[in-house]
């Protein structure tokens, strides 16, 4: 008997977060802590076919959400992967049943530090348990159980989404037909952790953070969260992209002001990124999710040998990296590919030439889309799903 509860979640006075599911059973986290209740906000696009074989699970990045191909309820921006997901597009919602959920620990309707802990009647804040990528994936697996999907045709995502896709393939190899980890890694490097630590310290240095208790006190650590976002945003771009977009151009002025206003366009741009981010994202969620990323280490799950994590995998992989991505560089994707080769897995690997840096996975990059379409066509043919002909 399935006791999970589905509803349209709309907290009083808050934005609508789409569909949601509250798990009937508690979730045992990787840390050993038991978390309950667990709610996941999610969206679906397209129709599940008769034999339930056409599900594509999209995993979002650190500050992403489940509004893959529909308007964000707060910013009203179009879906973050609207270039890729929709009728007739590469992830064709006329052919696939696309599912995406807000990650555990998130702040867009899923259980996270911003939500009320029913045991105390207060926001979880820092009493929320530390979660991991594996916990996020375990929660998603429960959502798929609820949706009656035993096996997904493809699990894919960029950045943190790539890590979830890899974790899915490792954790549930027989529930995943194919996986596309994009612009990701198999573990967080010292540099990755270092950048996240800067962001966390920026948040925690803001007096309005109030030791994580800001929601109960009616405050918001906007400055700290904005600085965290500004620093992180630089890592999502490339030097060439920054140079091409801004150079040393001045912002609405003809000369330097000899002060600390945003003289340069790049400063103004980063400030804008910071200030819009705080409107849609929760500072504690940022702490928890960056921690989950830092803890991610598939090599450790393989007992120190990455290939062991994949041994015997039946999953078809398509690993994609971008040439100018210095956050999760091509070399890390290649390490994944080498590990997959070592267990004779079915793997394709493409490095897309792009100047856009890490964020290229969110942009309209024709080579990237062609690669994904070709891989999906080959996989759909092998799975017996109508998509489009391979070997065009």
């Amino acid at each position, binding site marked *: 008997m399935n006791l999970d509860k589905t509803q349209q979640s709309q907290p009083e006075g808050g934005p609508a977060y789409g569909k949601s599911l509250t798990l009937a059973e508690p979730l045992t986290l990787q840390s050993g802590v038991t978390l309950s209740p667990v709610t996941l906000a999610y969206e679906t696009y397209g129709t599940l076919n008769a034999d339930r074989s056409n599900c594509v699970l999209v995993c979002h990045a650190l500050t992403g959400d489940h509004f893959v191909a529909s308007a964000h309820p707060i910013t009203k921006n179009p879906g973050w992967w609207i270039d890729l997901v929709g009728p007739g597009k590469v992830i064709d919602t006329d052919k696939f049943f696309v599912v995406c959920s807000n990650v555990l620990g998130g702040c867009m309707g899923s259980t996270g530090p911003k939500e009320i802990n029913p045991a105390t009647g207060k926001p979880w804040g820092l009493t929320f348990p530390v979660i991991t990528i594996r916990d996020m994936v375990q929660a998603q697996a429960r959502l798929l159980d609820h949706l009656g999907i035993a096996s997904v045709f493809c699990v894919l995502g960029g950045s943190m989404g790539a890590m979830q896709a890899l974790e899915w393939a490792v954790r549930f190899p027989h529930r995943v037909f194919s996986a596309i980890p994009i612009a990701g890694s198999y573990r967080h490097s010292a540099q990755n952790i270092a950048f996240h630590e800067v962001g966390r310290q920026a948040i925690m240095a803001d007096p309005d953070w109030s030791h994580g208790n800001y929601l109960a006190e009616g405050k918001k650590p906007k400055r700290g969260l904005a600085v965290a976002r500004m620093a992180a945003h630089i890592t999502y771009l490339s030097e060439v992209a920054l140079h091409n977009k801004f150079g040393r151009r001045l912002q609405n002025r003809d000369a330097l002001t000899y002060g600390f206003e945003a003289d340069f366009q790049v400063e103004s741009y980063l400030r804008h990124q910071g200030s819009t981010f705080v409107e849609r994202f929760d500072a504690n969620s940022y702490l928890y999710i960056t921690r989950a990323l830092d803890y991610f280490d598939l090599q450790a799950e393989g007992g120190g040998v990455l290939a062991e994590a994949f041994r015997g995998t039946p999953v078809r992989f398509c690993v994609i990296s971008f040439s100018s991505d210095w956050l999760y560089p091509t070399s890390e994707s290649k390490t994944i590919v080498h590990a997959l080769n070592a267990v*004779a897995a079915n793997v394709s690997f*493409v*490095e897309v*030439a792009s100047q856009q840096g890490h964020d290229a996975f969110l942009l309209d990059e024709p080579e990237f889309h062609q690669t994904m379409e070709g891989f999906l066509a080959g996989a759909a043919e092998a799975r017996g799903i109508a998509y489009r002909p391979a*070997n065009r």
Partner: protein
Amino acid sequence: MTAPQNIRVDLQHVADLVVPKSRLLDVGCGDGALLAYLKIFKQVDGRGLELSMSRVRAAVSQGLPVIQGNLETDLADYPTGAFDYVVLSQTLQATHNPRLVLEELLRIGTRAIVSFPNFGYWRVRLSLLFGGRMPVTGVLANPWFDTPNIHLCTISDFIALARAMDIKIEQSFALDSMGRRQGFEATESKANLLSEQALFVLTRA
């Protein structure tokens, strides 16, 4: 799924040798023409390794499992006995360590299918003997300063190396400049003089 009905004639020889539904690694697979052909006509579970990223993209965009990589470093990743066949077409002479590459091919695969240009071909010999210049032929198309071929050998050289490595030559074909079979085996002594290229099926003795 549509596929090329015609592939390069030397690839066709490889395709003809392969048992249906086998596992095959195409080293230096280009845009995946052989893999696509084998997938459709022989239901082969094929994989590809290719150095050129643009060719890798072309292959993956056709739905073929191909990765970008360098055979001289990346063959080491593959587990022993992972494939029924490992194919290396017209590439051995361009590797830094052909002996090690051959070792690796036969470690990874039960059989290796290897083709290469024959430097003992009579036109090559005459070109050097009378012209006094490095030969440029249809198969060896580039001048010495612009060739990827750094370890050219004759058919006899290759057979000697196979013997030294205890490699068994299971089958061999003598091929002309177009890659067409000449009707005798590459292990026959006349092949070293009369054949512009050769194809060998190798296995561990």
